[in-house]
């Protein structure tokens, strides 16, 4: 049924009421197209048979259960639909749900459900009320609630009510069991990380990390800049201080700053985020201090540009073409600007090292830069360079977690292949 046909019948009284009901249900629930087909049939019926009809059969078996995994204030109402209309009985359009704090009422309408074509199917309504006592739809927790379901028809005088349900309570749960898989993994991973942090502290830097081409190139690039007497451009990207990629990049920046100070060249760090800017300043200053040349650090080496993506890019582009750095290092979060920066760098003839965990931008760096750290490699790079037990241990834990996943994935695929769907299902978090 199309919308036009429904509205064109508005002038006709029963049809109008029908449309009102239809809209009401439509608003409360996105009902299936089936409902509207039913409604069409009824419009024709109602328009030809104006004689009063009998009320429909009452819905039954109203049961109320507490909704799982929430903080209370919600219950789930299940009921069976009215039986198919007998002679003279009006067709049921839908069901209204009423709630009360006492068996005898007063009743408050809380919602509605459209009827299903298959009248043998039972219907479910989730009554989720407000948790605020003053709010209009407040639903008290741990108080007896009574529910009643009313089958409604096109005629507002023709309806029938179900029996009142047994009392039920909305209870708040202290644990969301639907998220157990997530919880177990958090637990597992936390223990794994703590264990490897201990191991790393004991064994120091004897833990092996495979070399990363991009990182080995950094030292080389600094040397080249020194020979050419040109500065190094270090771009931290568009991340904020809470982005993992940016935090990883800080570690590398510290190391680069130290090297740069040792080799007596310059590093330029234009920043996008004001908070990142302040941290970057500290990092570079500390790097110069560690190299024993705190006097060589100038405040305008690390500067804030602006917090607008393309304005920032415009400014960095300008820097690349005006200062002609020998090496451009882009490590951190990057978005659309990745290729603009990398190509401008190529115009200036700089050596370029890039790394990001922003998957969409990796292709551009891979194509346009000399070395690229892909995703997790960026995180690993900071551990590889810093060789701090903390980072090494965390990396180890990640590797073991990955190993577990690979094994689980293979197992899971085999299990699904053999028809044990439950294995893969166990990993699905609900709600």
């Amino acid at each position, binding site marked *: 049924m199309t919308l036009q046909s429904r509205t064109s019948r508005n002038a006709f009284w029963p049809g109008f009421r029908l449309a009102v009901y239809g809209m009401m249900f439509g608003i409360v629930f996105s009902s299936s197209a089936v409902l509207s087909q039913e409604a069409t049939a009824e419009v024709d019926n109602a328009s030809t048979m104006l004689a009063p009809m009998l009320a429909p059969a009452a819905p039954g078996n109203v049961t109320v259960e507490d909704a799982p995994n929430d903080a209370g204030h919600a219950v789930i109402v299940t009921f069976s639909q009215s039986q198919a209309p007998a002679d003279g009985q009006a067709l049921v359009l839908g069901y209204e749900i009423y709630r009360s704090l006492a068996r005898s009422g007063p009743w408050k309408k809380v919602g509605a459900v459209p009827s299903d074509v298959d009248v043998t199917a039972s219907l479910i309504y989730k009554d989720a009320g407000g948790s605020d006592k003053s709010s209009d739809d407040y639903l008290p927790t741990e108080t007896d609630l009574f529910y009643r379901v009313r089958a409604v028809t096109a005629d507002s005088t023709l309806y029938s009510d179900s029996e009142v349900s047994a009392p039920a309570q909305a209870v708040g749960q202290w644990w969301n069991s639907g998220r157990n898989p997530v919880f177990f993994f958090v637990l597992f991973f936390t223990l794994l990380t703590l264990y490897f942090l201990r191991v790393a502290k004991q064994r120091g830097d004897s833990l092996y990390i495979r070399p990363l081409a991009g990182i080995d190139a950094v030292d080389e690039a600094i040397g080249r800049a020194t020979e050419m007497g040109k500065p190094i451009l270090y771009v931290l990207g568009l991340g904020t201080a809470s982005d993992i990629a940016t935090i990883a990049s800080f570690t590398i920046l510290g190391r680069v700053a130290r090297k740069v100070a040792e080799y007596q060249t310059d590093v330029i760090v234009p920043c996008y985020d004001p908070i990142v800017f302040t941290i970057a300043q500290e990092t570079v200053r500390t790097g110069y201090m560690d190299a024993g040349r705190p006097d060589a650090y100038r405040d305008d080496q690390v500067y*804030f540009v602006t917090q607008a993506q393309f304005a920032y890019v415009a400014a960095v582009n300008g820097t690349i073409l005006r200062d002609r750095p020998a090496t451009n290092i882009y490590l951190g979060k990057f978005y659309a600007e990745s290729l603009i920066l990398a*190509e401008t760098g190529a115009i200036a003839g700089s050596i370029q090292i890039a790394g990001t965990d922003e*998957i969409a931008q990796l*292709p551009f760096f891979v194509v346009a830069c000399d070395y690229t750290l892909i995703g997790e490699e960026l*995180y690993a790079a900071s551990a590889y360079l810093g060789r701090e037990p903390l980072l090494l241990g965390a990396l180890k834990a990640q590797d073991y977690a990955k190993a577990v996943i690979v094994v689980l994935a293979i197992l899971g695929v085999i299990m699904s292949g053999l028809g044990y769907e439950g294995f893969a299902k166990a990993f699905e978090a609900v709600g």
Partner: protein
Amino acid sequence: MKRTIPWIITIVTGFVLVIAEFVPPWGKMREDVLIYFQIISVFAFFLGGGSLLKINLQKVFSKRTDWEYALVTVVGFFVMLALGLFKLGNPEMATAGYAADLNANGSWFKNLFDAVKAPLSASMYSLLAFFIASASYRAFRAKNSDATVLLVSAFIILMGQTFVGVVATGWMPDWVSFFKVENLSLWLLAKANLAGQRAILIGIALGIVSMSLRVILGIERTHLSGGDE
């Protein structure tokens, strides 16, 4: 005080947010924390504007190289700020007062946005079309096996989006329809691409979880380092 309080704030905030995921009654508390976060993030914009002004005014007053351009920045900043903060020329001001929509049609703020910020960001972004051409020409060469795989996969996707590819493989009979370019490119995108994306995604997710864990446990303090402590 300089070290302990940030540390306590970190641990408390982190724990509330993580535990609220599993303990429904804490949901409200989590919402509150996140509302605070929303309001605080605006102050980062203020910090940004302030830092920008500080740096550029210093440049102007000390007449460093290019101070004229710094002046352009400062003037642009103040004009936009005035139009926005006082909602100048906003047609809705007559009825809604200061509650008027900042971006109402005809307001000077929106007009200046359309005149300056919109074309600048769109032009800056569209430079990519040129750069993507030069990057393709310069870097898409079959230098080694990796580069060849990259090249071939990009080329198939490009072909799949043009009629050239569709026409070139249109003759193929149905039983080899997999090799029709439009199908092949769709397959690359939806299957082979998915495999790689998923591998990277899982790795990154692990990295993020690991780093977040260290932050919440108070082990990782890079963001709190430095300063006059």
